[in-house]
Each structure stands twice: as structure tokens, then as C-alpha cells.
């Protein structure tokens, strides 16, 4: 019957992510709405550094691959210590991404682009801030998995639990794909 249990948790996390997705879609729509009516203050195209953020984003995108590998190594049958390494790499990549975001923020703030500067600042910081918050939550969950796995000598947690966490991580990653496209690429192209 443990398959029913897996099913149950997967279904729950998927429903949760659907709900989260609507939330992010609306924040993105708010960004787009105000992007289309931007005034002459700071905007995405004159304040953001697409190359730098692109590099940091690559780490986040790559971490989707590493978390998938970690999941494989948790599967019954080929459970192995490699999982810990993959997890550690995932966490490291996530952290690098957050550092990148931190650098970007401090750079913007140094140029007086803040959440209360103009509509670009408001929508940009809210959108990316909420994404960053989600990355942080994901990192905490990954760390918990890493810690439990390490302490129990890979006997715990169940593959299902790992899978739930990795769903979440993939989701956070996918959201960034959209944010990167809408906020950075769009500014760069148009």
C-alpha cells in the first residue's frame, strides 16, 4: 500500500504547486502591466545586468538536474551515498543563486533603485523577492533531507519524501525561467 501513500503525497504537492503557480502568475502579470506603462525612472533595461544574472541563473537551472540525480540515488534498489553529494551540490548551486540575487539587490539599492522608487522597483523587488523566499524555503527542505539522510545512514527519508522536495525545487526553478524571460530577456530584447 505504500504506493498509495506516494500517490497521496505527490498529489498533494502538485495541488499545492498549482496554487503557488497562480500566485506567481499574478505577480508576473502585475510586473508586465506596469512594465507596459513605465515612466522615465529606472526600468529593467537601464538597471539590470542580464549577463551577470544569467550566469547566476545558470546555477539555479543546473540545480534542477542535480536534484533529479539526487532523487535517483534515493530510489529503492539503487540507493547510494551519491545522493548526499548530489544534494550538497544542489544546495550549493541554490546558495550561489541567492548570493547572486543578494549582489544584484545591493547593486540596485546603491543606485537608489528600491521597492519604493517607482513601479519598476515595486514590481521587480516583490516578484524576485518572493521567488527568493521560495528558493530559501527549498534550500531549508533540501538541507533537512540531507541531514536526515546523513544521520540515518541513507535509510531515511523515503524516496517519496525526497520526490516531494524535488518537485518543489523544480517548481521554483521553473518559475525562475518565466521570471528571467519576462524581466531580463524582455528588457534586453525590447
Amino acid at each position, binding site marked *: *500500500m*505504500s504506493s*498509495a*501513500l506516494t*500517490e*497521496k503525497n505527490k*498529489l*498533494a504537492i502538485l*495541488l*499545492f504547486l*498549482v*496554487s*503557488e503557480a*497562480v*500566485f506567481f502568475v*499574478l*505577480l508576473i502579470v*502585475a510586473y508586465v*502591466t*506596469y512594465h507596459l*506603462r513605465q*515612466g522615465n525612472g529606472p526600468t529593467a533595461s537601464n538597471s539590470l545586468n542580464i549577463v551577470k544574472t544569467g550566469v547566476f541563473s545558470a546555477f539555479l537551472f543546473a540545480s534542477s538536474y542535480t536534484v533529479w540525480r539526487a532523487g535517483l540515488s534515493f530510489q529503492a534498489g539503487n540507493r547510494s551515498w551519491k545522493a548526499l553529494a548530489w544534494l550538497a551540490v544542489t544546495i550549493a548551486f541554490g546558495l550561489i543563486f541567492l548570493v547572486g540575487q543578494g549582489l544584484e539587490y545591493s547593486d540596485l539599492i546603491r543606485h537608489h533603485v528600491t*521597492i*519604493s522608487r*517607482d*513601479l519598476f*522597483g*515595486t*514590481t521587480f*523587488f*516583490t516578484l524576485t523577492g*518572493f521567488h527568493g523566499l521560495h528558493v530559501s524555503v527549498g534550500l531549508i527542505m533540501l538541507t533537512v533531507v540531507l541531514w536526515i539522510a546523513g544521520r540515518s545512514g541513507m535509510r531515511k527519508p523515503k524516496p517519496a519524501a525526497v520526490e516531494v522536495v524535488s518537485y518543489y525545487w523544480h517548481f521554483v526553478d521553473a518559475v525562475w525561467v518565466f521570471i528571467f524571460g519576462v524581466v531580463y530577456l524582455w528588457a534586453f530584447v525590447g
Partner: protein
Amino acid sequence: MNGGTHRPTGPETIWDVPEYRGLLSWVTSVDHKQIGIMYLLAAGSFFLVGLFEALLMRTQLIRPENNWLSPETYNQIFTMHGTTMIFLVIVPSLLGFSMYFVPLMIGARDVAFPRLNAFGFWITVLGGLLLYFSFWAGGAPAAGWFAYTPLSEKAYSYSTGQDYWALALLAIGVGTVAAAINIIVTVVTLRVPGMTMRRLPLFVWMTFVNAFLIILAMPALNASLVMLLADRDLNALFFEPQAGASELLWQNYFWFFGHPEVYIMILPGFGMISEVIPVFSRKTIYGYGFMALSTVAIAFLSFGVWVHHMFATGLGFPIYYIFAGASMLIAVPTGVKIFNWIATMWGGNIQFSTAMLFATAFIVQFTVGGLTGVTFAAVPIDWQLTDTYFVVAHFHYTLFGGGLFALFAAIYYWFPKMTGRMLSEKLGKAHFWLILIGFNTTFFVMHPLGLLGMPRRVFTYPDLPYLGLLNEVSTIGAYILATSILVFIVNVVYSLRQGRLAGANPWKGWTLEWIANSPPAVENFAFVPPVRSRRPLWDLEHPDDPDWKHEGGA
């Protein structure tokens, strides 16, 4: 596998609930029945608060140019009344019934995630407390239940009440989404063998569809609230006119949530009516398939009508066409339900228990509310009537004459199952007739009030012809209503001690909850009978003419 009895399905882990007695057993409970009852009790308490607020408003409005309440006080009260009734009364009490009965009706031992269930409940309570704490923290919110910007921005609503309002709704939103996820997963994974989706009791069906509405609509509220809080507390500019912001952004987001929310408040009620009417007509539900599908149709359409709350904002014609058309179309699946309920009663042997009386009144009153809804969907009429008492009449007919009447039907129907005792039918009938008279007196006159130009959300009004008279009638009605609630409370208190013992199946119902004991044991059932149709208990009683021989098509 369809032939034999089954063990109830349930979460595989046995949640080892420690053997607490008394209050502690409730506070620490993860049992779906206890949580369900706690939802109802919490909703009931907030109900009394909301009632009290309504009486304050009605008392203030009893005559023109009254200065009994100050405008600030009145504005806080109607905001709290609306917010309370929607977020802390109707939704939680519907969730309470869902949590209690969905597992029982599908032959499960509990919901899929008992701990999540407890979390959802307690965070909703926390939200309620946060909301009311605002009274002590500088004043309750006073921008109405949909808190239009920029009025709800710091520049115009300086009191922290508005922040408490937003935080409270965030908390309640999280709790509601948690509950919805739980319901969906429970229905998908914990149905007893034989309980196919096409055999689900309609209450479960509608609760199930409703849960999807919650999951898709709630995040829109959360997003709006987050933006509002960012503006208020981090000086962001989402809704700051000086920064060139769009005030319609808030309205679009809020109503993208807000309209589905009104169906969130009625779909489980439709489900309750769909349980009560067949049992007390001694017939099977008419047109089960159309009933289930029309629910899905309503759910879909409900995401395409939100602009009907914004017809006076000047968004322009093509947009209005789409949303007016969709709003009118939604009458069609709703009508399908109305007609199927009547068809179920048609030729039936109707037992007018109190529950059935409420269900019958529901049909008629909800139709009135629905028809005024369609009236607004004809855009130019809305241009005249939006934000008048005609709207107040519409939504009390749907929410109260519909939603609340369905809840009362459910309370009279399921109270014996939940407590083991019957509610007094005599007091019940007194309650019913009083509330019927009180409700229609209070709210029917609001239609002419709206047509006489009385705007909503005014703490007082000039002494123009008829306004004073009609408001007085409405206020008298509200006091009759309040009396009816007193009768109801007496009935509950009295019946809990002295009520007739119910036995497992006092109404001769046919769905699975009626084979469990009243109240059900911790594990709900020892065994679940075979489920081969929508009415397993009917099949047991009528082995010669079981339903599964007939349930093919519609």
C-alpha cells in the same frame, strides 16, 4: 471485489492519538470529526459576532439622519460584518461539514492528512483572532470587505486595522487552501472500493469541485494582499496613484478571487441540498449526471465573470460583452440544479422535517437571489443599480437565503449523526418559520430601497420619501431574525441533553455515513457494505430492486 464488505480506507499510518479526555482531546485532535465540529463551533461563534454587528447596523439605519453610530464606527462594523460572514462563518462552516462528512460518505476512516487538517483549522482560528484583535490595536479595518485601493492604502486608512485585516485573510487563505488540498486528496485516494467517481454522493462531488475552486482562486487573494501589505508597510507603490499605478489592478485581482469565492460559498450548499431533498422525498436524486456536470460547468464559468463587479469602472465594451455573456450563461447550469431538485421532489413522498423545510425554502429564495444576479449581468441595469441596496438584497438572498439556509438544512439533517441526538422538531419548526419571515422582511425590502436610490455602505441617509419606512421594516425583520437564532440556540442546547436518541439512521438515509454509529466511532466504521451504486443502503434494503440495475446513463 465489488461484492463483499470492506474495511474503511484510511491513512495507512494509524495516528496514535493520545488518550486525552475533555478539552485537551479537542485541542490536540487530528480526528476529522472533532475538527469538523470545531470548525462548526468556531464558525458559530463568529456567526454570533457577525449577527451582533448586523443588528448594530440595522439599528443605526432604522431612521434617516440618525447619529447613534459615528460614521467611523459604522464603517468598521460593516467591514467586519462582511469579512466575518464570508471568511469566518460561511466558508469555515462549509469546511467543517466537508471535513466531517466527506470521509464518512466515501467509507474512509479519516481525511488523507489529519495533521494538515488540524493545521488548517487552527490557522483559520488564528486569522479570526488577528482580525478581531484590530479593535484593540487602533481600530478595526473600515474599507469594506473588498478594500478597494487607494482607500485601503496607508494614506487613506492609517489605522493598523487594515494591516490586521490583510494578515488575517492571508492566514485564513492558507488554512482554506490546506483544507482544499486535503479534501481533493481524500476523495481521490481514500474512496472505499466500489465507490467510483460516478457513485460519489453529490455532496462529496460538489465539495470536491469546490476544492479546486479554492486552490485556483485563493492565491489571487493572497497576491492582492501581499501587494497591499508591501504598499502599506514597505512603501511599495503598487496602488499609489501618484506613481502612475492602476487602481483597477486591485479590483481585477480581488474579483478574480472574489467571484469564485461566492461560488465557493454556495457549491457545498448545493451539495447539502442534493442530499437532503432525495432522502426526505424518499426518492433517488433526479438527473445525477447533469447535477455533477453542471457543478463543473459552474466552476469553469466562475473564473470568467469577475468583471461583472466592475461594470461601472469604464473598462470598455468588448470586455463587458464577454463578462456579461458569461455571467448570464452561469444561470443555465444553476437552473439545471434547481429543476433537478424540483424533479426529485416531484411525485415523491415528501416528509417535511425541519431540514426539508429549509431545503424547500432554499430553492425559492436562491432563485430570487439568482435572478437578481442575472439582472446585474445586463450591464446597463448594473450601471444604475451597482453599489445600491439592490446589491445588498442580491447577495443576502444568495448567501443567506441560499448558503445559510442550506447550512441550516444540513445542521438539522446531520446533527443526529454528529451528536447521537435529534434536534427538537417543534423548536426547529418555530425556528424555521421565524427565520423565513425575518429573512424576507429584512432583505426583500432592500430591492425597492435600491431602486429608490439608496446607496450601500452609508451610515445614514437623507429623509427622502419611503427610505425611512422601508429601512424601519428591514430593521424589524432583522430583530425577528435574531429571535429565530435564539430559538435555534435553545434548540441546540436543549437537544444536546434532552434530545431523543437518534440511532444510526433516523432519517432512513442511503449514503454511507448512516451505517456508522451516531456519533461514529473513532475509526468511523467497523465495516463498509459493498458499494455498487450511489445508494448503498438502499441496495441493502431492497435486494430485489437495487439501484445498480438502473444507474446507467444520466
